[in-house]
C-alpha cells in the first residue's frame, strides 16, 4: 500500500473512531451520578435533614414559581425571572455551561444567580439578546460561600469532576458529614441564604478533597429561575 493510501485510510479510521465516540457518549456520561445523588437524598430525608428537596423531578415553570414565591427570601431582596435552561457544550472541555432562553432584553446581567427545583444551578456568566450562558455549579471556576447545618461558613467550588463540587476553604470550623446538606450563606449578593448547594457525598482528608454533589439535574434541560437583585425603588 502506498503512503498516500495509508494516509487516506488513517483519516477514514479516525473519522469512524470519532463517530463511535459520539455514539457512546450517552453511555459514558455519568448516569451513575444520578443514582448516587438519589441515594444520598434518600439518606438525607431519612435523617430529616431537608424537607424541600424531596422532589427530584423537574418542575414546570408555574410549579417552580409557586415553590420559591412562598419561600421567605423572596419578599426582600430578589425578583424571580423564569427561563428555560438547555444543555450547552462549551468548546473548552473543562468548562461546565448551560444556555438560557432569556438575556439582556429582560435585564439579565453577568453574575446573577440561577436556581432550579432542587437548589443552586449556577451563575450567569455572559448575556446577549435572547440568550445567556450559565456557569454551572460543577464548573471548576464556580465559587460561592456556603454554611453547614450549624451555620458555619466555608467556600464551595465546583469540580474537579463533572457533577461534583468540593469545599475549597474553611472560614469557620466547619465539620462536614456524609449526607449533610450544605446551603448558601447569603453573602456576596448572588444567592439568598438557605438554598441547597448540594449534599456531602464523601468526607475526605484533607478537607478540600471532600466531595459535595450539587443537584443531579444540572446538565438537563429544565425550567429555572434567575435571581435579579431588587433596586431600592423596587422594594418600595
Amino acid at each position: 500500500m502506498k503512503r498516500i493510501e495509508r494516509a487516506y485510510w488513517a483519516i477514514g479510521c479516525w473519522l469512524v473512531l470519532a463517530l463511535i465516540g459520539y455514539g457512546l457518549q450517552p453511555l459514558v456520561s455519568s448516569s451513575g451520578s444520578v443514582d448516587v445523588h438519589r441515594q444520598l437524598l434518600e439518606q438525607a430525608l431519612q435523617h430529616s435533614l431537608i424537607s424541600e428537596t424531596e422532589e427530584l423531578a423537574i418542575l414546570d415553570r408555574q410549579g417552580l414559581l409557586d415553590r420559591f414565591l412562598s419561600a421567605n427570601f423572596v419578599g426582600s431582596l430578589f425578583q424571580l425571572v423564569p427561563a428555560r435552561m438547555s444543555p450547552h457544550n462549551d468548546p473548552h472541555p473543562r468548562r461546565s455551561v448551560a444556555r438560557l432562553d432569556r438575556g439582556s432584553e429582560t435585564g439579565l446581567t453577568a453574575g446573577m444567580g440561577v436556581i432550579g427545583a432542587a437548589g443552586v444551578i449556577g451563575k450567569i456568566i455572559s448575556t446577549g439578546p435572547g440568550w445567556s450562558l450559565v456557569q454551572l455549579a460543577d464548573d471548576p471556576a464556580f465559587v460561592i460561600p456556603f454554611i453547614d447545618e450549624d451555620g458555619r461558613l466555608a467556600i464551595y467550588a465546583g469540580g474537579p469532576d463533572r457533577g461534583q463540587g468540593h469545599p475549597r476553604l474553611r472560614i469557620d470550623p466547619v465539620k462536614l458529614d456524609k449526607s449533610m446538606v450544605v446551603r448558601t450563606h447569603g453573602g456576596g449578593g448572588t444567592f439568598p441564604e438557605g438554598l441547597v448547594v448540594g449534599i456531602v457525598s464523601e468526607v475526605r482528608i484533607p478537607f478540600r478533597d471532600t466531595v459535595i454533589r450539587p443537584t443531579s439535574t444540572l446538565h438537563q434541560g429544565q425550567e429555572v429561575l434567575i435571581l435579579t437583585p431588587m433596586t431600592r425603588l423596587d422594594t418600595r
Partner: protein
Amino acid sequence: MKVGWFTIILVLTIFTTGAFRPLMVKTAAVADPLLILLVWFALVDRWPRIVVVLSVICIYRLYGGISTPLEVLAPLLLVLIAVRGLRQLLDPYHPWKRFQIVIPALLLGAVLQEFVLAGNLPTISFVFQSCWVVALFVALLFPVLDLTTPLLRSARFPL
C-alpha cells in the same frame, strides 16, 4: 501547505475532542486531542503552521464559550514553550524518545490549566495518574497523525 487536508485534520481533531468529551472531563483534559495535535505540530513543524493551529484552537475555545483569553492561551503557550525547549535536548523525530518531550509538556499544560481555572495546583498524585492517560492518548493519536503526513506537503516528518 496543503490547506485542504490541514483543515480536515484540524476539524477532525475538534470533532474528536467533542466525541470524547466525557472522558476529557474525567481526566482533567490532560489528554485533549487538540493539545496533542498542537504538540505534534510543535515537535518538528515550521512556526507558521504551529501559529495557525494555536490560533484556531484559541478562536474555537473563545467563541461560544465562557473561557477568558488567559484561561485558553496560557496552557497552550506553556505546552508550546515546553515542547520547543525540550526538543533541544531530545530527538523529536525518534518514535519513542519524543514521548519524553510530549508527556511532560502536556502535564505542565494541564497543571497550569487547573491552576488558572480552579485557582489551586493539582496534587502530585494527579500528575502521576495523568501520566498514563497522556501516554495512552499520545500513543493512539501520534501514529494516526504520522500516517497523515503525506497529505501535508510541507510537513517535516521523516517517519
